[in-house]
């Protein structure tokens, strides 16, 4: 064990702080990437349509998120390998291929969601999507292809800070705090079909398959070792809590304004526009800015990350600095994600809802597989040594997985056959 980790709080010089920040990071960045356009839209709709009724789910969701992400971070620290690497080595190429194909479809849909988030945020403040989306796409491409590591990291850190705009909007909306806090800890439930589908939606958007891949790779890229893992675990926990604090403020702000006035909203743009007369122009602008930031942030990560996992798992050459000749699959995938993702948003009458819908289904079908593979891997002694799940934690992990699987299957089934939900209610 490197000496510095024995008493980190005593020896807090600049380098230790730097090291702490070096270890802290993957969890927080993943958490922020998690609150992407899809997440923000879902949270704001949850607040707008059901008031404080969904708030209580945030605590169990946070626990589930911590349990799942912690396992990935641990696997990354112990093996030094990404999740797609581990799946390929332990389950063979066929399973890897199908998992990655599912991830490709799901993430293409997610990328479309990010660009439509950029479009929606522009429209709230009155800028056409034909300006914001191409500029966003060019920025994303430029950042990764032309920017160096330092610029990217600076931008990512700045983007993380901007999530605070939601907390500010939350306070500006002045919700009755005692009521909000009570709704957060006291569960309330409704068997109405729309409530159920919103509940599933909130869970589904918070725990998406690609994040498990992302956090594990981020831990590997940060070169975190098993010895440093204790610090890393705190990073995961802090990150997950931040994710849901942001969600909490979004839901509270929309509940106290849009829900209270009974305004009907269907997407993020509606929410932004509805906030203007209710909470003031500043709150609406902040909301739009937050959405823009979140969408752009995740749009920067998602295409690159997905191209990496696919190439990693299939054994294809990958790397930003590589030419098309050296890494044809990587460059093609990365470029296709940005171009297709942005283009779909811009094509008039493109089946945007249909694409989002199918990507949600792909996400939902993929998640059970990814979770089960993760649990098998994290419990393999010859892979993880003494870092396998403890008995209690394993129970918790399997329980979380089963609940997640049931919920996402419900999401998939109700997406495919919406008629089932009213019948069951």
């Amino acid at each position: 064990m490197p000496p510095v980790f024995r008493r980190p709080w005593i020896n807090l010089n600049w380098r230790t702080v730097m090291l702490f920040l070096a270890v802290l990071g993957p969890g927080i960045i993943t958490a922020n990437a998690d609150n992407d356009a899809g997440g923000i839209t879902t949270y704001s709709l949850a607040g707008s349509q059901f008031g404080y009724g969904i708030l209580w789910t945030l605590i169990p969701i946070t626990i589930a998120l911590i349990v799942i992400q912690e396992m990935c971070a641990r696997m990354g620290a112990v093996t030094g390998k990404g999740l797609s690497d581990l799946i390929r080595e332990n389950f063979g190429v066929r399973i890897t291929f199908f998992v990655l194909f599912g991830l490709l479809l799901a993430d293409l849909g997610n990328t479309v969601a990010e660009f439509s988030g950029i479009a929606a945020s522009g429209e709230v403040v009155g800028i056409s999507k034909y300006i914001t989306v191409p500029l966003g796409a060019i920025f994303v491409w430029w950042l990764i292809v032309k920017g160096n590591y330092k610029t990217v990291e600076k931008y990512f850190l700045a983007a993380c800070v901007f999530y605070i705009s939601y907390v500010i909007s939350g306070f500006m909306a002045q919700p009755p705090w005692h009521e909000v806090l009570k709704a957060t800890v006291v569960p309330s439930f409704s068997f109405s079909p729309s409530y159920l589908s919103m509940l599933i939606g909130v869970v589904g958007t918070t725990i998406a398959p690609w994040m498990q891949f992302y956090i594990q790779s981020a831990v590997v890229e940060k070169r975190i070792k098993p010895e440093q893992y204790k610090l890393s675990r705190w990073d995961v926990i802090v990150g997950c809590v931040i994710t849901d604090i942001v969600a909490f403020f979004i839901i509270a702000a929309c509940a106290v304004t849009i829900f209270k006035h009974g305004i009907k909203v269907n997407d993020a743009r509606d929410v932004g526009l509805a906030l203007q007369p209710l909470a003031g122009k500043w709150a609406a602008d902040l909301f739009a800015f937050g959405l823009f930031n979140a969408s752009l942030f995740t749009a920067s990560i998602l295409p690159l990350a997905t191209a990496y996992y696919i190439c990693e798992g299939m054994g294809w050459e990958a790397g930003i600095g590589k030419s098309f000749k050296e890494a044809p699959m990587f460059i093609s995938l990365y470029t296709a994600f940005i171009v297709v993702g942005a283009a779909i948003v811009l094509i008039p009458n493109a089946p945007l809802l249909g694409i989002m819908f199918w990507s949600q289904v792909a996400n939902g079908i993929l998640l059970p597989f990814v979770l089960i593979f993760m649990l098998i891997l994290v419990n393999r002694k010859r892979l993880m040594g003494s870092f396998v799940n403890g008995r209690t934690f394993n129970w918790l992990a399997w329980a979380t997985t089963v609940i997640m699987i049931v919920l996402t299957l419900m999401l998939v089934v109700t997406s495919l056959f919406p008629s089932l939900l009213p019948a069951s209610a």
Partner: protein
Amino acid sequence: MAFQMPHLPDTTAFTSWIQGRVICDAQGRRIGVLKDFLVEPVGTSLEIRALVLKDARGLFSVPGEALSGLGDPMYLRGDASDYAHTPVPEDDIHLVRDVMDAQIIDTQGAKVIRVNDVQLNWLGDRLVVSGVDIGPWGLARRLGLANLLAWLVSTFHANVPEGLVPWTDVVPMDKGFHHLRLQVASQEIRRLHPADLAEIVAELGHSEQQQLLSELSIEQIADVVENSEPIVQVSLLQGMEDEFAADVLDAMEPDEAADVLGEMPSDEARTLMTLMTPDKATQVRHLLTYPEDSAGAMMTTELIAVDERLTLGEALKAAKPMLSDAEVVAYFYLVDSEHKLTGVVSIRKILLSDSDTPVRDLSSRQLYSAQVESSRDEVAELVSRYKLTALPIVDETGRLVGVISVNDVLEFYEAEHK
């Protein structure tokens, strides 16, 4: 319309093809289904020692030499009753479990790749692993899409490369099970350039990294660390025992060692410095006192400095002990009795002159140098404007303290542009 797979002679087969085939005895009675192979490194090759079969009672192994051919179904010599239900030793190397889908190092291409398929060949009466498939064909075979790929290729006249690498050019990295170590292949690894090795190391998981480094000498490890990115450098050193890490630092150029130590948490760096040889540690400690972007932090202290009063012959003799460690051998720097820089003699002059010429007479007319506090940009400017291979660095009193090579400058620019 079925596309005919390219026909291979019966002496060779891909693992993906024959895996899952029915195995019969000489009378055609079914014994089981082929699941895996137990392999053993023999010299440069990997030999099939046994087949892992599965029947209704579970997995069992039969000796590899019983196999009489690679047809479908495959036949074993003798009678079904000859093959007792021998249990499969878990710890032996399993070809499918341990080699398929594993990372390998292609020593010819100097890169890390994944095994899509494994080619087997009869060598006399022994079945051996002859090569690994890292290309699209292997992938297609594994996915059961080989016919589709063949059809696409013939329809569109596409050029899809074979992607077969001979087993002798491959160093397998185990999937964390620590039993795939092959002594012969590791010689190939040692022949790779440190820059290639550094790139390979960065792509591997923790246990593979340790496996690879354990094949290298301290000097090679030092070279690999020098060629790695800062974040990898720190992680490599942190992964070693402190004494070993100190030995590696000793073997590195002092400026490089100082850079790595500068990136580490200060008490870890201090611990390592106490374990280094005192002489090296002093140099490194000195280098660490310079601000990060200064010439002092960039320079190395290992250079060739000779007394200006010597003749060339004497100077060459004096320089001999410095030659092995010096990063820059293109110039001999001349110093006076107070170690102040007074001149510079290029290697060309040294090679062309008589040994009794006083070195002072060989000194170049222009003498460029920078101060330890000079910025990196100033150094780069001097090096590029005067086309220098190296630039001597002096302290505030004019004493020669170090040298910056054009490589150091390039490295700095490369890091800036990454």
